[in-house]
């Protein structure tokens, strides 16, 4: 597609200052009718901030926005919704206490005689969601559904609100390939009907698959706008990072596993995960693969004591270990980066420094505070090692961009120098550069003799760093792949094998 007429949405000179940081600096974004426009950039580049400025969630500090040639100035998200801009913000932003239908129709409920017509609302919601391949009872509360379902509901809501523009901030972060395909189908339809779509993701494959054009941000500035037909992934990455991305995936099978560290025998929790057995050696990365809802997160939680097993046992170095809660796990040298960093990871109001030191301090006990100098040293070390971008170590961690929060969490656990590191979706929402760094880091940790258990929905990534892959389906352990068996194809097969009617 070549550049058509005038842009539908034109933002120019958008600036946004935060105390101590310039998040956006005279950013320009041109959105043409009927195009899918990718917004790219590293973690903390300012993508989400730009979206929020466009939709009135933030007040911008400078710049103009025109829609259809007219100046607009949405002061709240409600106003931008009325203007026909539907948005999915980063992280699911829906209300867990309301039903699916209520979330879907919040603010535009069908009414009869001034009263909300619940029956009609539920029917319409059911129909709308069928279009996304979801057949569920919309009268159930949202929090009874998995993150993926919630994400789809959020998308459905935004689509329904978008008369002119649809903005999707990392909508695919917690989606499966199938759902992504469905989503892309919907996007194509909308695009054909003349809608403009802004699409943010860190999956470059997806960018190239669906988008026509991309604007690349770096440190709050636009560093380029490209027609994607004209460039390669490599170009885009270089533009984003401002440097070349060195090839990361070396020959990983080189190192051989060390001593047996952890034996898991039939660990299970009724209703959550079926008996699960596995051995974990030092210097080994075991990948946990499976579809959404297959029980990867549960397995990780079970090992870490976040949920208590009601069956089976665990041996550490041959001795039986009782892990009743995360504290026990930490004491035994476990560490875990949880899947949902917002609610289970960061301690939002505390400084980045405190967040990094938290687990180590908790393990040491309150009686032995870590000296300030030591704290500073540790924090500085990991900020540098993991390349965490921040204005100051004293800023509350909630102000960091998503990817940087993830790195800070990694830092928290690395600071405890664990024997076993459990990572649940470690690269969710992380940019390509950091992605590569984290994969490299996993490699490094493994080489240093740490045992890692990584749950991830990205098969390529699993293949890249795992020395063994355990495949889960319906909360069952179905297959273990080792050595050369570890290929994306094999994993997919294992997941899909014996197509007994799974999750229905």
């Amino acid at each position, binding site marked *: 597609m070549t550049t058509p007429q005038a842009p539908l949405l034109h933002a120019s000179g958008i600036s946004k200052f935060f105390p101590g940081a310039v998040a956006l600096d005279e950013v320009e974004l041109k959105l043409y009718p009927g195009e899918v426009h990718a917004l790219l950039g590293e973690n903390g580049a300012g993508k989400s901030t730009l979206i929020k400025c466009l939709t009135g*969630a933030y007040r911008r500090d400078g710049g103009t926005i025109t829609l259809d040639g007219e100046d607009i100035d949405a002061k*709240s*998200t*409600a106003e931008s*919704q009325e203007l026909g801009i539907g*948005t999915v*913000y980063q992280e699911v*932003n*829906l*209300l*867990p*206490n*309301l*039903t699916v239908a*209520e*979330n879907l129709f*919040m*603010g535009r*409920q069908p*009414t009869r005689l*001034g*009263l*909300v017509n*619940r029956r009609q609302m539920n029917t319409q919601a059911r129909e709308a969601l069928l279009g996304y*391949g*979801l*057949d*569920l009872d919309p*009268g*159930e*509360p949202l929090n*009874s*559904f*998995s993150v*993926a*379902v919630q994400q789809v509901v959020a998308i459905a*809501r935004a689509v329904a609100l978008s008369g002119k523009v649809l903005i999707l901030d990392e909508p695919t972060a917690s989606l499966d390939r199938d759902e992504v395909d469905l989503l892309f189908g919907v996007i194509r339809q909308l695009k054909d009907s003349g809608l403009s779509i802004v699409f943010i993701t860190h999956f470059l494959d997806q960018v190239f698959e669906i988008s026509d054009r991309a604007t690349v941000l770096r440190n709050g500035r636009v560093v380029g706008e490209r027609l994607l037909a004209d460039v390669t992934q490599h170009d885009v990455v270089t533009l984003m990072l401002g440097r070349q991305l060195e090839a990361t995936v070396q020959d990983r099978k080189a190192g051989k596993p060390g001593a047996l560290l952890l034996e898991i025998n039939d660990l299970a929790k*009724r*209703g*959550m995960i079926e008996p699960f057995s596995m051995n974990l050696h030092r210097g080994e990365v075991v990948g946990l693969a499976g*579809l*959404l*809802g*297959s029980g990867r997160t549960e397995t990780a939680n079970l090992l870490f004591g976040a949920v208590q097993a009601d069956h089976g046992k665990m041996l550490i170095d041959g001795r039986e270990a009782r892990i009743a809660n995360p504290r026990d796990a930490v004491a035994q040298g476990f560490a875990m980066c949880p899947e949902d960093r917002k609610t289970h990871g960061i301690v939002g109001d505390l400084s980045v420094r405190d967040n990094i030191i938290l687990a180590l301090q908790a393990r040491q006990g309150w009686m032995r505070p870590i000296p300030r100098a030591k704290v500073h040293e540790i924090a500085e070390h990991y900020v540098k090692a993991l390349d965490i971008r921040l204005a100051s170590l004293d800023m509350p961690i909630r102000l960091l961009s998503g990817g940087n929060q993830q790195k800070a969490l990694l830092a928290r656990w690395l600071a405890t120098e664990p024997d076993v590191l459990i990572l649940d979706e470690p690269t969710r929402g992380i940019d390509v550069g950091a992605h590569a760094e984290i994969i490299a880091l996993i490699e490094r940790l493994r080489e240093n003799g740490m045992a890692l258990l990584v749950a991830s929905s990205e098969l390529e990534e699993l293949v890249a760093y795992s020395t063994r892959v355990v495949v889960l389906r*319906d*909360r069952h352990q179905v297959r273990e792949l080792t050595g050369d068996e570890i290929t994306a194809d094999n994993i997919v097969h294992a997941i899909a094998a014996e197509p007994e009617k799974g*999750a*229905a």
Partner: protein
Amino acid sequence: MIRSTHLPLMVTLATFVLAFALCGWQYPSMLSTRVVANLLTDNAFLGIVAVGMTFVILSGGIDLSVGSVIAFTGVFLAVILRDTSIHPLAAFVLVLLITTMFGAAMGAVIHFLEMPPFIVTLAGMFLARGAAYVLSTDSVPITHEFYDTLQDIYWKAPGGGRFRLIGGIMLLVFICGALVAHRTRFGQNVYAVGGGGPTARLMGVPLARTTVGIYAISGGLAGLAGIIFSLYTSAGYSLATVGVELDAIAAVVIGGTLLSGGYGFVAGTFFGILIMGLIQTYIVFDGTLSSWWTKIVIGALLFSFILLQKGLTWATITRKRTATGSAQQS
């Protein structure tokens, strides 16, 4: 259709029925229409104020000012009816306006100055009672034939129970409250705010309007409760209804609404009120508790209801965990 979300409501209802049956078993005269009528009449003002409190708590807030507002309303009415010749109905409208504005003002302070509701309404509580003192420290009787007319409206049921107007008004308020909460956009917004302020804002919920509205409703209903209370006692007294806010909060919580906001039902509050009334009636029927044992028993019963609710909620969550598989994928 009964959904899992309605469970707390069912639990409260079941608790009430069970408790009532037990009481009746011990004191058969508790199963009379008198007791039923008394439950409605005596708790009318508390019920009305609890409806407002339900909205506030559903939104994740709290309103400590209601007890004082009731007292203020009573004193205001009494003084104005004593000192001027204005008709009670006009006075009702006036006082409802004042209390609604008062509530709205607190809501505005909470929203625009980003101050915690607990503290803002605490200051409101001092202010309203202080204003009542300034109007009159003495208890002022209300003698207006219109009041007598209203008080004489009742239906005498067989068995001696008198179902009075104020009980009816309470039922009406509950019905309206339930409709507003569950069947209007405003009500949905209240739940949304309770589910999470920032998220609700991103979803386009008008936070300012909703917050101000919620506290205005609470203030207005406290005003209405004040009118009802003045009908109930034919007087305005600045020391009246001290601590009613805590009773209302307790009723709302017993009724299954979560103090953290977002979950609960107006109808649940109704049964919460009835349960609280039942506790009091039972203690009077028993009649052997000393002053201090009365307090201890009320506390213990409050605790056991909370515990019961907790247990049932916990049981259902566990059941749900085991029951729902990964049922959502298609």
